[in-house]
């Protein structure tokens, strides 16, 4: 069994010191490697990532990361990357790395990924140059993922992203809300002004509950265009990594699968609500052939 610790969206900056460090003290007893799924900083400042790098320095497990959108905000992503690499964190963008864990070759293909949306509501490279650039960026990163996954020879293969390749980890559980509207209408003749006021409160509560439910249990669907892209799932369908890890969707849910059954985990820290989560993978299991992918 290979034990993968993973977390994303740490959003480090000034004032973040010691948030993670106490929980990393025993990491080497619990995991064989640590993967970071982007948004390591608040605004992409090298001084922000330095705070995190200092906490990661000296860990006795290999650390592999991709950057996220926050890490690009200051246009200093190269410096962010160098600070991490100085702390022996391997940063991937359209690249792969392989780590030997007790004789098992664990391969990680990484890219930030980008938005673009999902089937039925995805952006197309049509129209304004800005829209073409938006979708073009997703396509370019998806092509990079395709290339590195195709060339990744390992006993266990992991795709590490910041943006989500599937809708399932963006979509929270939906509560079923039943409003007994009809009953109240039928009871109209018995309704006093006071009861009428209560009834209005109850009926209006539905929209309030839906809004509350959305904030508690799921990303608002209008945001899905910027939370992930189905295009990223193409290389995953074709090359079938053993697990896909991503972050970015703070109001999403942790667990999902592609329709063809590949495990996807949203490890955004506000979702997992721990310093990291640990996933164990069996390197000896029979992988399905790529051709058996079907639609995902």
């Amino acid at each position: 069994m290979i034990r993968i610790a993973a977390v994303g969206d740490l959003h480090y900056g000034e004032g973040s010191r010691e948030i993670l460090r106490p929980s990393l003290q025993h990491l080497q007893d619990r995991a064989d490697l640590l993967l970071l799924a982007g948004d390591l900083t608040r605004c992409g400042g090298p001084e922000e990532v330095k705070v995190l790098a200092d906490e990661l320095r000296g860990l006795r497990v290999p650390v592999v990361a991709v950057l996220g959108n926050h890490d690009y905000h200051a246009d200093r992503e190269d410096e962010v990357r160098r600070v991490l690499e100085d702390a022996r964190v391997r940063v991937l963008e359209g690249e792969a790395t392989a780590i030997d864990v007790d004789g098992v070759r664990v391969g990680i293909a990484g890219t930030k990924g980008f938005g673009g949306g999902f089937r039925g509501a995805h952006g197309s490279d049509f129209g304004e140059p800005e829209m073409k650039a938006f979708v073009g960026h997703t396509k370019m990163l998806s092509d990079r993922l395709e290339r590195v996954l195709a060339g990744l020879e390992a006993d266990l293969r992991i795709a590490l992203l910041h943006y989500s390749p599937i809708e399932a980890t963006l979509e929270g559980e939906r509560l079923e809300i039943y409003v007994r509207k009809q009953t109240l209408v039928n009871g109209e003749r018995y309704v006093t002004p006071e009861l009428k006021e209560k009834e209005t409160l109850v009926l209006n509560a539905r929209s309030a509950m839906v809004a509350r439910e959305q904030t508690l249990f799921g990303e608002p669907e209008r945001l899905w265009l910027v939370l992930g892209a189905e295009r990223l799932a193409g290389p995953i369908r074709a090359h079938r990594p053993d697990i896909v890890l991503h972050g970015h969707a703070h109001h999403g849910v942790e667990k999902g699968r592609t329709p063809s059954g590949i495990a996807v985990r949203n490890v955004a820290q506000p979702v997992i609500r721990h310093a990291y989560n640990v996933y164990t993978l069996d390197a000896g299991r029979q992988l399905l052939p790529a051709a058996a992918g079907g639609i995902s």
Partner: protein
Amino acid sequence: MTEPRRPDYLPEAIREKLIHDPRVAEQDLRVEVREHRVMVGGNVSSPQLKQRITEVAKELLPEYEVVNEVTVVPAAEPDGEEPVS
């Protein structure tokens, strides 16, 4: 002050401020404004960040009461591990 001050624009103005002010830079906060109260919800990683949200909102709207319902996300070690297949 360049932000629109119409009450129905205020939540978005505050959200924009909380996204772009480098002291906070959080994209996932919920903001509601009712009468002279600003209510902010969501998740952040540290108590300092939570405090800064109040400060930034207060700077923008000094005459409003800021009700900070933001949760500081715990960052303890996980309890167990999940076998994935």
